[in-house]
C-alpha cells in the first residue's frame, strides 16, 4: 500500500518499439498537470522521463518505469533488461553515445540523454551491470 499522500504508477516500456516511444512520458506529463504541479517542474520531469524512456527503447529488450508523486517530490525510477553500460563515467559525458547508425538516422543517440537527465534532476543515480541491465533514479523536488 502506498502512503496516503503518494501516488505510484507503473509503466512498461518495450525495447525497439519506436512507434509507441514517448507515450509513457506523455502519460507522466498529463498526471503532473492534473495534480497542479508547477509548470517549470513539469518541463524538467518531461525532459528527464522522455530521455529515460528513449534509453530503454533504443538499447534494452524491455523495461519498466515507475512514477511516484508526493507533495515534496516527483520520483522516476527506470530499470531495464539489456546490455547495460560498461563505463558509466564515459556514458555521462555529453556527446558520447553507443547508438548504432540506424538509431542516429532516426534522430536519436546524440549522446545527450543521460547528461540531460542529470541536468534536469535534483537527484540522479545510475547503476548498471553489463549484460544484465541499467537502473536510473531521478528525483525532482517540488517547491524547490
Amino acid at each position, binding site marked *: 500500500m*502506498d502512503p496516503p499522500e503518494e501516488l505510484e504508477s507503473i509503466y512498461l516500456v518495450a525495447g525497439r518499439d519506436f512507434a509507441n516511444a514517448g507515450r509513457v512520458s506523455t502519460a507522466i506529463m498529463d498526471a503532473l498537470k*492534473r*495534480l*497542479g504541479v508547477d*509548470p517549470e517542474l513539469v518541463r524538467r520531469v*518531461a525532459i528527464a522521463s522522455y530521455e529515460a524512456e528513449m534509453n530503454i527503447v533504443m538499447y534494452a529488450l524491455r523495461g519498466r518505469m515507475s512514477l511516484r508523486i508526493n507533495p515534496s517530490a516527483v520520483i522516476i525510477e527506470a530499470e531495464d533488461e539489456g546490455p547495460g553500460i560498461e563505463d558509466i563515467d564515459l556514458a555521462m559525458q555529453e556527446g558520447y553515445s553507443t547508438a548504432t547508425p540506424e538509431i542516429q538516422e532516426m534522430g536519436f543517440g546524440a549522446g545527450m540523454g543521460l547528461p540531460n537527465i542529470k541536468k534536469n534532476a535534483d537527484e540522479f543515480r545510475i547503476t548498471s551491470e553489463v549484460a544484465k541491465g541499467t537502473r536510473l533514479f531521478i528525483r525532482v523536488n517540488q517547491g524547490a
Partner: protein
Amino acid sequence: MPAQYHHSLRFMPDKCHGCMSCMRVCPTAAVRVRKGRAMKLDDRCIDCGECIKVCEQGAIVPLTDQMADLSKFECAVAIPSAALYAQFDKDLLPGMLVAALQRCGFHDVEPLSPACDAVSVATEIFLSEYRGEYPVISSFCPTVVRLVQVKYPEFVAQLLPILAPREISARNAKMRISAATGLPANRVGAVYITPCPAKIVAILEHPGMTNSYLDAAVSITDLFQTLAMAVSSVREAEVEMDASETASGVSWAFLGGLPRSVPAENTLSVAGLPNVIRILDDVAKGKLRRYSFIECHACPEGCVSGCLTVENPYVARGKIVRLCQKLPAGPVVDRKEVERCYRERSFLMDEPFASRPLRPLDENISVAIAKMRKRDQLISELLGIDCGACGAPSCRAFAEDVILGEVERESCTFFWQHELANRVEDLVRLIQIQKPAKGG
C-alpha cells in the same frame, strides 16, 4: 477559481438535440452533455470551432460582430483575411474585393499582404537574434496560443512575441486614415473579416498585448451573401489594378505561409489540432529542440478551413494558389525600413504571454493526489470503451467528473447495469433461502 475567460462560442440549449457530435470532436474534452443538452467547460475551451463544424442543429453560435454593430464607428475599415479571396465563384482580384467591400458599407479597406510581408522579415530578425529555448512557436493562430496557455503552460515563453499581420494592418490603417482625414485614430474602427471565431477572443483578450489594434470582427459566413451580390456587380475593368496584395502575403491563408517567406533553417508547419497537439507533446519532451520555428494552425489546412468560411477548404486553397499566380511574388517589403521599425520595437508584443493551466483536481496537492488515486481506481472499474452515453467524451473524463462531484457514478449505463445484476442475484438467492418446503 480561474478568472473568467472570454469565449467566442455560445451553446444554445433550446436548439440542442443532445446528439453528442460536438462532445466527440472537441480536442480538449471541453464539452459535456447533461440532461440531454450540450454544455461547455469554459476553462478547457480554446475556441477552435470544431464543434460549430459538426453541429447540424445550429445550436452553437459564434459571437462575432454584425454589420449593424459597425455604425458606431465614424470610419469602418475592413481588413480581409486572405481566406476571403477564395470564397467566391469568380476569381477575385484584390481591387475587385476592395470595391465590393466598399459597396457593403465599409469606408475603407486595408490589405493584409504588406503586413504579412513585414512580419516575415521581423520574424526572420527575431529568430536570428533569439537565444532562448527552441523551438519558437508561431502565435498568429489565437487557438494555438490558447492551447499553449492552457495545456502547455511550461512553454508559453516559446510563443513568438511578434504582432500578427492582422494587428499590424489595423495599426497601419488607423495611422493612414487618421493622417488623410484628420479623424482621431480612436474613431476609426478596424474590422477583421474573419474565417474563425477565435479572432474575436484574440481581440477581447489580446494575449501578449496591452490592447488589440482591432476593434471588431465580422465573420465571412455572415458577410457572404451581401458580399457575393456586391462582388457580382463589380466588373474587372472598373477597378484599378493595385499591387497591394502579394502572393507571399495571400498564401498565409494556408499551411506553410510564414516558412515559405522566412529563410530560417529547420522550420516545421503543422495544421489541425490533433496534429498540433502531437507536435506540442514532442516539444514538451524536448524532442524538437533542433527546430528553430514551428508554424501551427488549429484548422486542418490553415485559415482557409476556418469554421466560419463558406467554400470547401481544398477548393479554397486551389483558388488562393491560382490567385497567387496573378499577383507579384513578394515579399514586397523595404527590409531596411522594417528593420528600423523592429529596432523601435514596433513589431514586438509588449506583454509576456500569460500561462493559464487547467484547474487541477485540487488546489492542495495532497488532496489532488488522493483524488487522482480515486480517479484511477474508478477508471479501472469502468469498461474503457469511451461510449459517451454518460455525457462525457471518455471514461477517463467521466471518472474525473465523478471525483470532482459533478456527476454520480450511476450515470454510467454499464456501472448501473452491473449494480442491478448484483441486486437481482441477491434477490434470487434470498428467494431460494426463503423458499418454503413443499408440503405433503
